[in-house]
Structures are given as structure tokens and as C-alpha cells.
């Protein structure tokens, strides 16, 4: 067994309409003036109303200008507003981009100075202001994770922030908030969560029995309920299962890392703006085939746990899992190839650039198998 450290700093509360307790939870952590980070889409759905109605007048300030792929300028604007209002706590309500923006804004609000000073891993030295996260998608796991990414639009790169101190103090998992999530986003974010669990379960250097248990149960829930949640947004049982599974996968990957699929997806997202969950879904079967010779026994364990194979031959069971993932992705309506999401023909120079980006992505350091530039180019070609 690997030596390991397992952190789960976030208090998780799950239940229907639990979002209405946000004001109370913020207060529990000492917050008196709360900076609420969200986006226009969430605002329009009306799901903020029960959350805001519990806050006292003048005890909060709302920032709604978070784009779908948030950046440094957004964080700087949010931080300036939070400081101007004298906020002492943060509440994030939204998908991955909103949650990551709120987490990074909290660094600036708590520590001051320039955001770029805090880029890195384990680089935070003081406890940040209390932050509560309410996810409105089921996939990123940002509500429980110790990492956040935002784009530097000027430098055209993603900035990574990682620290135990970055994890939200509390996450409120309210399945009723997911009812309005469109099928395509439900599917893509769900496949993101599946990718988190598959990759975390295959990180041979950092996996542990703690993370294994979370991965296996989250995969069981996602395989069973993601098709239902995608088909019928009002299926609350399915929304409950996918929301909890996503947080479980989040706790898992934040403790042991992800792998080559995320590296390929990050590079694709940085270059073409492809939705992260969709890109993960496209790359997942290819990344798994690539890793197969070193982790077939791990994939086989998952396949048997999910009842996808009874074979005692690891390779056979592992192939059954890869096939089932491709079928699940198709069932929930996600495209199988990069060309299907508007990515143009990948010529040699572009392939080299994407392969370089993927090879330098921090996610790849946890992959169970080393990859050359040729391997990465081959993966892009196969996924195209």
C-alpha cells in the first residue's frame, strides 16, 4: 500500500432545499458581511432567491460577472468589490467556473497583494476567510477540492492554485438546484465526475483505500443515475445521486490527482475553449486504452464492481469498462470525437503544440504511465 495523506477539510451537508441555510452556515463560520459569487445564468434561474432571503439586509454583496471560463481579470474585479464592501466571508453559488473564481478571489481577499504571487502548490500560509460553496452542477467537485484554476487571458495560460487552505469550509449539496441544469451540461459535468474517479483510481503512486472507496461508490452512482438525470432533469433521485457522487469524486481526486485524460482536456480547452467535461468524455476511452497495460487490474476492479464483467481476466474486464464508458457517453448524448465539437483539422504544428501543452500539464504527473510527445500526438489523432 502507498504511504498517503488524506485530507477532507470541507464539511458536507446534503439535502433538498439545504441551500436555504447558507446564511446560517456562513454565520456559523464567523461571517458577517458575505461576498456572494455567482453568474448571470444562475441568477436568471431564480435559485438565488431562497438563499438571499435568509441573509440580513446589507450583510452581503453580489458579484454575477463570472464567465463560463473565468480569468484573472474577473478575479481582480471580484476582489476589488469584495474589499470595497469590507467582506469577511465568501459564498459561491454556481458551476465549476464560479466556484473556482470564488476560491481564488478568497485568496486575494484574505491575503491581499497580487494574485499571481499565490500561483503554485501549497503556497498559502495563512487561513483564508470562511468560504461556503453551493454547486449547481454535478461534476467539477470544486466544492470540496483543494485546487482551483483560472485563465490568464493575456498570457493565454491556465493558472493553478492548490492548497489544503483553499478548500471551502462547507459545501451545501442541494439537488433541487440541479433541476434546471440542461441535459447537455448534466451529461458533460457527469462525465467529468466519472473521469475524476477513473483517473484517481488509477493513480498508482498516490491512490489509497480512502480514495478507492470514494471512487468506486461514486462510479456506481454515476453509472446508474447519470442517464436518468440527463433524460429527466426533474428526477430528483437521480439528481441526488449524481450530486453526491460528484463530491465524492472531488474528495478523491483532490487527494490523489488525476491523469493523462485531464492533461489532454486542459490543453484542448486552453487552445479551443472546449467544455472541460465534454473534452474529458471524448478523451477518456482513449486515455484508458493508453494506460491499459499498466492498470488493467485497476480497471478490472471497477468493471467487476459495476457488474460490467464477470471475467477473471483483467484485460477482458478492463476492456468491458472502456466499452461501457464509451456507450454511456453516447447514451447521454455526448459527441465521441473532437471533430464533433468544432475542432478543426489538427495539422502537425498544432498537434505538437497540443502535445507540449498536455506534457507540461500538472495533471499528467499522476498518470500511471509515462507518455512521449508521440504518444500524446497519437492520442489526439485517435480522439479526432
Amino acid at each position: 500500500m502507498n504511504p498517503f495523506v488524506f485530507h477532507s477539510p470541507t464539511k458536507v451537508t446534503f439535502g433538498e432545499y439545504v441551500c436555504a441555510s447558507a446564511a446560517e452556515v456562513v454565520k456559523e463560520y464567523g461571517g458577517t458581511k458575505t461576498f456572494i459569487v455567482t453568474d448571470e445564468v444562475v441568477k436568471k434561474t431564480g435559485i438565488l432567491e431562497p438563499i438571499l432571503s435568509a441573509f440580513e439586509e446589507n450583510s452581503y454583496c453580489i458579484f454575477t460577472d463570472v464567465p463560463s471560463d473565468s480569468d484573472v481579470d474577473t478575479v481582480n474585479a471580484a476582489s476589488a468589490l469584495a474589499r470595497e464592501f469590507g467582506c469577511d466571508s465568501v459564498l459561491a453559488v454556481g458551476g465549476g467556473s464560479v466556484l473556482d473564481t470564488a476560491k481564488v478571489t478568497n485568496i486575494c481577499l484574505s491575503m491581499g497583494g497580487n494574485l499571481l504571487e499565490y500561483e503554485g502548490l501549497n503556497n498559502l500560509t495563512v487561513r483564508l476567510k470562511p468560504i461556503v460553496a453551493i454547486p449547481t452542477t454535478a461534476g467539477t467537485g470544486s466544492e470540496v477540492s483543494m485546487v482551483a484554476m483560472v485563465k490568464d487571458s493575456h498570457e493565454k495560460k491556465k493558472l493553478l492554485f492548490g492548497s489544503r487552505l483553499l478548500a471551502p469550509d462547507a459545501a451545501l449539496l442541494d439537488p433541487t438546484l440541479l433541476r434546471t441544469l440542461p441535459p447537455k451540461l448534466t451529461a458533460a459535468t457527469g462525465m467529468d465526475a466519472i473521469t475524476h474517479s477513473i483517473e484517481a483510481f488509477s493513480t498508482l503512486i498516490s491512490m489509497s483505500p480512502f480514495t478507492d472507496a470514494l471512487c468506486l461508490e461514486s462510479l456506481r452512482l454515476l453509472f446508474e443515475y447519470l442517464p436518468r438525470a440527463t433524460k429527466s432533469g426533474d428526477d430528483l433521485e437521480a439528481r441526488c445521486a449524481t450530486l453526491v457522487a460528484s463530491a465524492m469524486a472531488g474528495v478523491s481526486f483532490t487527494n490523489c490527482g488525476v491523469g493523462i485524460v485531464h492533461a489532454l482536456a486542459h490543453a484542448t480547452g486552453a487552445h479551443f475553449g472546449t467544455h472541460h467535461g465534454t473534452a474529458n468524455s471524448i478523451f477518456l476511452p482513449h486515455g484508458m486504452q493508453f494506460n491499459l497495460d499498466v492498470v488493467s487490474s485497476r480497471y478490472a476492479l471497477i468493471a467487476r464492481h459495476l457488474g460490467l464483467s464477470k471475467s477473471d481476466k483483467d484485460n477482458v474486464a478492463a476492456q468491458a469498462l472502456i466499452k461501457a464508458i464509451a456507450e454511456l457517453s453516447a447514451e447521454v448524448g455526448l459527441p465521441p470525437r473532437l471533430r464533433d465539437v468544432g475542432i478543426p483539422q489538427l495539422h502537425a504544428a498544432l498537434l505538437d503544440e497540443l502535445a507540449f501543452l498536455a506534457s507540461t500539464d500538472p495533471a499528467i504527473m499522476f498518470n500511471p504511465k509515462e507518455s512521449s510527445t508521440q504518444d500524446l500526438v497519437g492520442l489526439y489523432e485517435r480522439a479526432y
Partner: protein
Amino acid sequence: MSVFSSTEQLQEIMQELWTRIAADPDMSTKLIQSRLISQFRYREPQGLITIDSSDGAEMKIIVGDTDVKPHVEMAMKSDVAHDFWLGKVSIPVAILSGKIVSKGPVNRALALLPVIKPAFAFYPHIFDQWARKARASK
């Protein structure tokens, strides 16, 4: 107790190591091409080494305090650095467990890890030489 008895010993060993890396074109060429300035900040005992390849022409090895602003900083106990060069530390695991603190675009430094792996072969000799020297001088 640390394997390094003093800041001077730690820094001299690291300087010797990086000098050998700089002299090996298989490693230095790619490090120079990266144009990266990396700084290694050690504690217990303290030490500071900066590798400046920013001009794309040579690797400058700066020992101790400097005004050169690094792109990436890696901070760790000096024993973690020793174990790393012996090939006993997995960087991803050390990062997850908080043993290594990185500041700046960590991906740029991680990309160079495979490049410096050949140095694992000669670090033990450098360290042993110093250990023998230290024993002889007592």
C-alpha cells in the same frame, strides 16, 4: 538530524551537482532552451540555489541570496532534496503531502523533471565525496 551539517555543506553539494548538470549537454541543452529561472529554497539547514537559464545561452548557478527574480520557486526541507536526488522522492506525492511548496507556474518546472533524471546517477558520488571529506577534516 539533517543529512547536511550546515548551510555551507548543503550549498556546496548542490552547486557541485548543478555544475555537473550544466556540463552535461544532454541535460543542460534542454534546461537552457527552457529559459526558466528556478529557485530552490531549502530549510533545516537553510540554503538557496538559483538556476538562471533566462538568456537562452547558459545556465547560471547562483548560490545564496540574489536579486534575480525566479519564475518558479520550490521550497522544501534539505533532507527532501537529498532524497529527491537519490531518486527516493516522488514529486507528485511530495506535493500532495505538502513536503514541497511550489510558487509560480509549476508545470514549467515539472516539464524539466525527466531532463534532470540522469543526475540521479551521479548525486550519490558527489554526496559521498563530501561526507568523506567532512569525516577526514574532523
